[in-house]
Each structure stands twice: as C-alpha cells, then as structure tokens.
C-alpha cells in the first residue's frame, strides 16, 4: 500500500499536519502555564509604576520609548551614534514628536 | 476505415521558412490490415502518420474516421479518440527515463482514472506476454534495445487499441529484432487490429505480413498501392 508515491506523500503530509496539531496543543498548554507569569509581570508594572518593557537598554529612547522626548534620539550631540537595529525597529511615537492631545 | 480527403499540411505558414509537408493527400485506409507508408525521409510519411493518428490537424482537407468527421473536433475529443483507439510506437521509442518499465506501460492509462491495482495487473500481463516479466521493475535505462522496443509495444497496447501506429520502428534495430517486430505486428493483426507503419526499411515493407504499401515522395502519394 505504501509503495505508491501518492500514498507516501499523503502520509508525509498527514505527519506534518499531526505535528502542527501537536504544535497547537503545545501553544495552548504554554499559554495556560504562562498565565501566572504574565500576572506577575502585570503586578510588577503596577507596583513599580513602570511604563516600558526592558527590551533595548542601549539608550534612553530605546529603553523607554514611551517616555522619550524629541532630544533623546539625538542624544547630546549631533555626532552621536545611531543605535542599530533598535533605533530602526522602534519608530518615534506620535506623542513624542509633538502631537499634543 | 479511415478516409483522408485532400489533406494538406503546411508548417510555419506565411513565414520565410514555410514548408509544405503534405500536398493534398487523399487516401482510404482499410481496417484490420497491415498498411505500410514507404518513402525516404522528408517524404511526409511522419506527417501523414501523425494526422492519421489524431496527433496533428491538417491545414486543409478533411479526415473521416469510421464514418465520423473528426477534422475540427476540439482537442479534448481528439485526445479521447487518440487514447482509446490508437496505440503509438515511436521511432525513438520515447520511453520516459528514470521510471520503471511497468510504469511506462501504465502511463497512457493514467488519465482514465482506473484503479491502480487493476492497471498494474494488466500492464504486468502485457509485459509478460512480451517476455519482459522479469524486467518489469527495472528502470528503462537498464534495458537493451530489443527489450525497450518490446516495452514500447506493450505500452502501445495498454488501452487495448484497435489501431497501432508505428513510425520507423526498426530504425535502431538489427535484422533479428526487426523480424521479431514484424512477427509481433502480424500477431496483432491476426487479433483483429489495424496496423499502420511508416518505414523505409526493406525488412518491413517487403515482409509477408504486409497487406498494402503506399509510396510517398516529397509530400505526395506517388503510388497508392493496392491490397496485395
């Protein structure tokens, strides 16, 4: 039965789909397991009054993009380095570039 | 019966390399006979053969196949007729390399949607009939010339055709194999099938099995031949 190419192919695809299902189950499981950790982070943000995630610690405007001002990307001088890739990945926030409410 | 009326075939019409392969051929082929198209290369035998086998359409003229006009049938119907009525044996055999003899024999029947198991059995039976049972699962490249020829014949037979068409089948065969080929054709004729062969090989057109020889030259029929 498995001699035919088409049979082997269907089996292969079925296998891949089975793996995808396992992947989906894994994802659901992990989400459930992560819930307390997410709550922990949420609580920490509340108690410490944090405004940003700790993603890129190179510069002020990459570490706290929500708090950045117009000057931050330019640092203290026009010749200061651009931070790559975080500077490219993080666009200036509308509330930073002066769109006052 | 296959009738051709003033069939003309022109290639590259209108272009500088325009070439008239067939000039107004009219012909009636009787069924259940072995007919030979004889002539040198360039005489138009291959073109005539491909038109007779519903593989190409004439530029002008009409084809009537078993009292049914098929000249302007859509491709789908032509392919259907081709698949169910005709079996082809090509000059170069044209077997597909890289797959087994068995699979080659089964190929023409794939679009028919037959159950694989039955198809395999039928193909195997055909190969056995031509003494190729042991080689059924060998790849084509490993077969000798004679074995390949027989696979080609077996493939032509898979859809149980009533008309066999062969184009220069003995071109790459030695005398012994050529004679064996003609014997196989005789066998098929006696089975009630029609055989059409294009050849300029004397071993073919001088064979006893032949019923009629049609001579061609430069795209025209010069000697329609009569049933011998």
């Amino acid at each position, binding site marked *: 039965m498995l001699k035919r*190419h088409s049979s082997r192919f269907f089996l*292969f695809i079925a296998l*891949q789909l089975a*793996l*995808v299902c396992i992947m*989906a189950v*894994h*994802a659901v499981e*992990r*989400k459930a397991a992560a819930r307390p950790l*997410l709550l*922990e*982070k949420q*609580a*920490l*943000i509340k*108690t*410490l*009054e*944090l*405004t940003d*995630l*700790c993603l*890129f*610690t*190179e510069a002020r405007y990459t*570490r706290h*993009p*929500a*708090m950045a*001002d117009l*000057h931050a990307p330019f640092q203290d001088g026009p010749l200061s380095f651009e*931070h790559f*890739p*975080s500077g490219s*990945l993080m*666009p200036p*926030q509308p*509330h930073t570039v002066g769109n006052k*409410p | 019966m296959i009738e051709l009326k003033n069939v003309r075939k022109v290639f590259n019409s209108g272009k500088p390399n325009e070439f008239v392969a067939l000039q107004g051929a009219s012909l009636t082929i009787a069924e259940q006979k072995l007919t030979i198209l004889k002539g040198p290369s360039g005489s138009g035998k*291959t073109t005539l*053969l*491909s038109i007779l086998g519903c*593989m*190409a359409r004439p530029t002008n003229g009409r084809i009537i196949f078993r009292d049914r006009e098929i000249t302007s049938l859509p*491709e*789908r119907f032509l392919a*259907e007729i081709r*698949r*169910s009525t005709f079996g082809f044996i090509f000059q170069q055999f*044209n077997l597909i390399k890289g797959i087994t003899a068995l699979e080659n024999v089964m*190929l*023409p029947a*794939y*679009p028919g*949607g*037959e*159950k*694989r198991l039955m198809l395999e059995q039928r193909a195997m039976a055909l190969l056995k009939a031509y003494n190729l049972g042991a080689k059924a699962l060998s790849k084509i490249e490993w077969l000798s010339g004679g074995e390949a020829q027989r696979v080609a014949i077996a493939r032509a037979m898979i859809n149980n055709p009533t008309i066999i068409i062969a*184009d220069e089948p003995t071109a790459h065969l030695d005398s012994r194999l050529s004679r064996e080929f003609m014997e196989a054709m005789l066998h098929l004729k006696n089975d009630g099938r029609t055989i059409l062969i294009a050849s300029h090989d004397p071993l073919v057109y001088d064979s006893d099995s032949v019923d009629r020889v049609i001579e061609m030259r430069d795209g025209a029929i010069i000697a329609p031949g009569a049933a011998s």
Partner: protein
Amino acid sequence: MIEKQRNIIDFTLSSLLRRKGKNSALVIVYTLVVALLASVIFFTHALRTEASLVLQDAPAMIVQKLVAGRFDLIPLAYEEKINNIRGVNAVRGRLWGYYFDPGIGANYTVIVPEAEQPADGTIVVGEGIARNRKISIGDLIPLREQNGETGIFKVTRILSASSSLVSSDLLLMSERDFRLFFNIPRTHATDLVLAVGNPREIGTIAQKIVTALPDTRPVTREEIGRTYDSVFSWRSGILIVILFSAVVSFLIFAWDKASGLSAEEKNEIGILKALGWETSDVLLMKFWEGLAISLSSFLAGLLLAYLHVFVFSSSFFQPVLKGWSVLYPDFTLVPFINASQIATLFFFTVVPYTVATIIPAWRAAIIDPDAVMRA
C-alpha cells in the same frame, strides 16, 4: 475521479524525484523563506500581545516637564495645580533615571518604588544585572555617584528571572539614596504619576493639565500601550524591506525554476501528450507539483518557525536584536498564535509562489504532441 488524481500524483511525484537536486533546493529555499517570515510574524505578534497585556496596569498618566523640547526635572509644586483638577485621585512625584555601569558597559534603570522601598544603603536588582555582574543576595556593590564618589550598596533582593521582560535592568533604591546619588533636590522629581478615578476622563484631564501647566507633557496609559503596538510592526520600516527582498528573490527563483523547462522535460510532456494525455491532464500534473512543493514547504516552515521562536527563544534573531545592548532580555515568549497569522503567512508565500509558477506551467501544458513525432 480520485483514482485519476492519485495516478497523476504518482507520476508527478516520480517526476519530482527524478530531479532530486533541483527540487530539493527549491523545497529547502521555500521552507526557509516561510520559516523566516513566520518567525518574524510569530515573534512580533507574541511580543506585542504580551506588551499590551502586561501594560494594562501601567500608570494612568505620567506628566513630564519639557524645557526646549527636552525632558527636565519637574517641580513638585506642580502637584497642587494637578490635584485641583477634577477626576485626579492622587498625584505623586516619581523618581527614576539611568545609571551607566562602566564595568560592563551597561545601562541600568534606577527606580525609587513607592511600595516596598528598599532601606537606605540597600538595593534590589533585576535578574539581568545580577547575571551580568555575577551578583548574589548579600553582595556589596559599588556604584559611582553623581559627585564622583563611590557608594557601597548591599543587595537585599534579586527580581525574578520570569519577570525579566519588564525588570531585567532595574535597580531599586531608597528615595534618600536616589536624591543624594543623582543630586536631585527635594523640590523636584523626575516626573509626576497620576491616579485617575475614571479612565475615560484621562484625555480630558490631560488637556486640562496642559492648559494649566503649559511647559508639561502628559503621557497617558493609552499612549504607553500604543508604543508597543508599533514596535516591531513588521509591516513597516526596516523589517518590511528585509522580508520583501527575501520573498521577491524567492519568487524570482521559483519563476526561473518553473519556466526553465529543460529539453528533457519538454520532451516528456510531448510524450505524455502523444500518449493521449490532454492539456488539462498536464495542467493537473503541474498543479499537483506546485501543491506538493508548497504544502510540504509551508508546513515545514511553520513548524521550524514555531520551534525557533517559542522553543529556542528566537536565537537566530539574537545577533540582530542585541545590537549594542549588553543586558539582553530572555525572549522566551508566550505562544500567542492565531489563525490570522497563518493566513497572512499563507498569503505571502504560497499564493505568490503559485502565481509565479502558473504561467510557466500553462506554457508547458500546451506543448504540441506533434513535436515529439519529429524527433
């Protein structure tokens, strides 16, 4: 009908297998392109989802003082005016800043927490700091103060590793220590944090603050949350350029592969036609060929991407993301996957591939069987 399809699939697969090298290369490239795109989609979406979830309890509003467009310390005297605005429950000065550690060349975020403030002379550090400076609880750490002197601080607690996404580089100290350390007068703070009774009034309150205190800028909770929606937005900026190039080069490769029918392939199709296969049969064959390759590669790429992002913490992206940071967070993201991501992925890979190969496939299918007769 099914039998016919199976027969054709049989032959299609044997055709593909006969040109192992070329087709393996295609499948590998295809899989990698899908994996790359999927990795980016999974990563950015998981990050953005997590950000929006954990930042739900971010401060309702932060008020900053701006001098010539630059962030400056805010006078605590401003609290009074803000307190008078209706809807504001509480307003308090927040103290935070940055400390550059020359020892390992990293930036820390120093915070004075309102609740559970460390005792004077002690600090609480984030897991990233502890890891990089090999700190354990009880260690005494020297930190260079604003005035040039070095203060020694005792580490009383290390924040959990599981919260590193928000706390990796944090350094908590007491208010007294902070003001001495950074030389910040008692009359000022870094910014002001507000507690608001009705979240829907935040916008109005912000406007009132700007009117009352024109040199300030409020940042609302909503804006804070929106920040991370645009971070890693894969549909813009540098990412789209990279992804676009990857997908387009792949399509060119696919087109080239599909339309460069070798003489042998053309001959084969001619033979099939001569044997009685119709154009539609050959088209079916080409269709199954495309599907076999697409399906295998798509599923494989999907699985690879999932493994990469959610099991191996996006290790391939690490060199790119790390940039100049020394403190690099652990990107063990939660698998926030949904069907729309998969659909997007499908739309950007399988659909273009199919479109790119359709015309070459059609051209192959209409080959005249006649050509085969005149070998």
